[in-house]
């Protein structure tokens, strides 16, 4: 930073990502409120602690190896050649075979006077990791051990989602080159994978006691505090503004980046370094939220829980292509995805006896998958990258369907199911039946009651 304009651009970018991190923090606040509101009174405090503790667990492991994985595996390895060359300054080979900036012992992973971006970019990705783990957390409330959830949160938050991000959410990712994969605001790389992972865990974990009658009919265990759930979902919406902004690069001169001699074109870009605008995605975001809310209200016959969840499902469905869609396309796509997610939730619940306590698999998993598939058709033929001539496939339906299978199934459902099986085999997955019936907070509540009685009977 030796000239004022360069310094301003750098400091602006640093501050931009910092703001996105603060906004995305609200997603986690929202998830905590949402989960506690959805849980029953006797499980409240443990439910809150389970979700809260994913913050430090995913953060430290993201520092140890999560960020490293993102920079280590864009090429597969070995599936498609890297375009990272000396000219980009991002050569593979530093720091254990990944990039130096991902090595937890490298001086760039700290306050560094020569770098203003790595830390905030690391943090923005970390907040995506929290989101992925938090999605899983909601589905499995009231019967999983905190120990098991900690392992699963690290697996989805610091390992599997970051592998899919390296493959399909990186300008050098092999899924762009081979499949023409496009997922600007993470329908697949965050939501579909987390939904698939949650479904894999749920298949092993089993339903809450009493969820299904002896004849197999599902019973509704609705949110115990609808107000907390509503405020939580509003906060998640708010945090999504930060999520969308964090998926962009705020200012980039694409002329020299694409090798166009004499061309200067400053713009915001998505994560793939293809152009979009913050202004435009503000419209697509709001119209997809609206499409989801309208569809959710209609299909659930005005149920508040599903109307709010529908707003979220709408955003998630349209997110894959919201960098390029017309806002009215976002509206329609969001409505379709929300309708399918709602219907799928109840079909899967009834058919496979899956007890997804907050509808996370539907809102994130099914809506994410639908969003990827629709994106493949609507953006068919668009370039998946601006680096022409370097072997990138164009966006296409087949590539996006395969991408959806990779996200939801290969990197989501399968690892979730395997890890849950291992934890179940070790007797560490599910809390004892007696504890589930009594309530996870029984001991805390009993102690609080004794304290209260002692205080009430005191006269000095």
């Amino acid at each position, binding site marked *: 930073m030796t000239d004022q304009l360069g310094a301003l651009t750098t400091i602006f970018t640093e501050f931009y990502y910092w703001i996105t991190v603060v906004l995305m923090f609200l997603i986690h606040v929202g998830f905590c409120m949402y989960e506690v509101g959805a849980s029953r009174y006797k499980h409240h405090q443990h439910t809150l602690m389970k979700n809260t503790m994913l913050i430090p667990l995913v953060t430290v*492991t993201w520092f140890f190896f999560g960020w490293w994985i993102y920079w280590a595996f864009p090429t597969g390895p070995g599936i498609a050649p890297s375009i990272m060359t000396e000219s980009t300054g991002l050569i593979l080979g530093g720091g254990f075979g990944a990039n130096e900036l991902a090595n937890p012992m490298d001086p760039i992973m700290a306050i*560094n006077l020569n770098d203003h971006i790595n830390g905030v970019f690391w943090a923005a990705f970390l907040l995506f990791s929290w989101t992925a783990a938090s999605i899983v957390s909601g589905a499995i409330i009231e019967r999983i051990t905190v120990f098991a959830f*900690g392992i699963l949160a690290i697996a989805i938050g610091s390992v599997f989602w970051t592998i899919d991000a390296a493959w399909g959410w990186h300008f050098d990712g092999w899924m762009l080159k081979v499949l023409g994969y496009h997922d600007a605001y993470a329908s697949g790389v965050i939501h579909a994978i987390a939904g698939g992972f949650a479904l894999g865990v749920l298949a092993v974990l089993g339903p809450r006691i009493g969820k299904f009658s002896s004849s197999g009919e599902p019973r509704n265990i609705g949110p115990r505090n609808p107000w907390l759930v509503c405020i939580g979902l509003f906060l998640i919406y708010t945090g999504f503004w930060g999520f969308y902004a964090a998926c962009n690069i705020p200012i980039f001169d694409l002329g020299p980046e694409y090798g166009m001699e004499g061309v200067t074109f400053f713009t915001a870009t998505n994560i793939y370094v293809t152009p979009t605008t913050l202004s435009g995605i503000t419209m697509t975001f709001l119209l997809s939220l609206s499409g989801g809310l309208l569809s959710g209200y209609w299909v659930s016959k005005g149920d508040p829980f599903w109307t709010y969840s529908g707003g979220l499902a709408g955003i998630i469905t349209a997110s894959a292509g919201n960098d390029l869609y017309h806002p009215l396309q976002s509206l329609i796509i969001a409505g379709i995805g929300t309708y399918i997610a709602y219907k799928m939730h109840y079909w899967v619940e009834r058919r496979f006896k899956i007890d997804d306590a907050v509808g996370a698999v539907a809102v994130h998993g099914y809506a994410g998958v639908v969003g990827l598939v629709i994106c493949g058709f609507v953006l068919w033929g668009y370039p998946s990258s601006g680096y022409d001539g370097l072997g990138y496939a164009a966006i296409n339906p087949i590539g996006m369907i395969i991408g959806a299978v990779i996200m939801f199934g290969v990197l989501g459902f399968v690892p979730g199911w395997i890890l849950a099986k291992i934890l179940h085999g070790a007797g*560490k997955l599910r809390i*004892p039946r007696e504890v589930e019936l*009594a309530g996870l907070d*029984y001991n805390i509540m009993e102690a609080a009651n004794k304290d209260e009685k002692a205080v009430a009977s005191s006269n000095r």
Partner: protein
Amino acid sequence: MATVTSWVEHLSADEVAGAVYPFIGTEWLWLTIAVVFWLWFHVATGAGEAEEQQKLARKRPGSNDYKKNITDW
């Protein structure tokens, strides 16, 4: 040991060193301690959780017994 003892000298060098945290070169040690702490946390809290739940399971409270423990606001 301080990495920087004079900001004027540090910032006027031909090539300004980016890293300014203390004990540069010992990152491996901090990383090792942090990884051990992280793994210990899982073992310790996992064991504590299991013990607490076994104890509660042996008491076998009913599914509505928690209601008698609800405190005032």
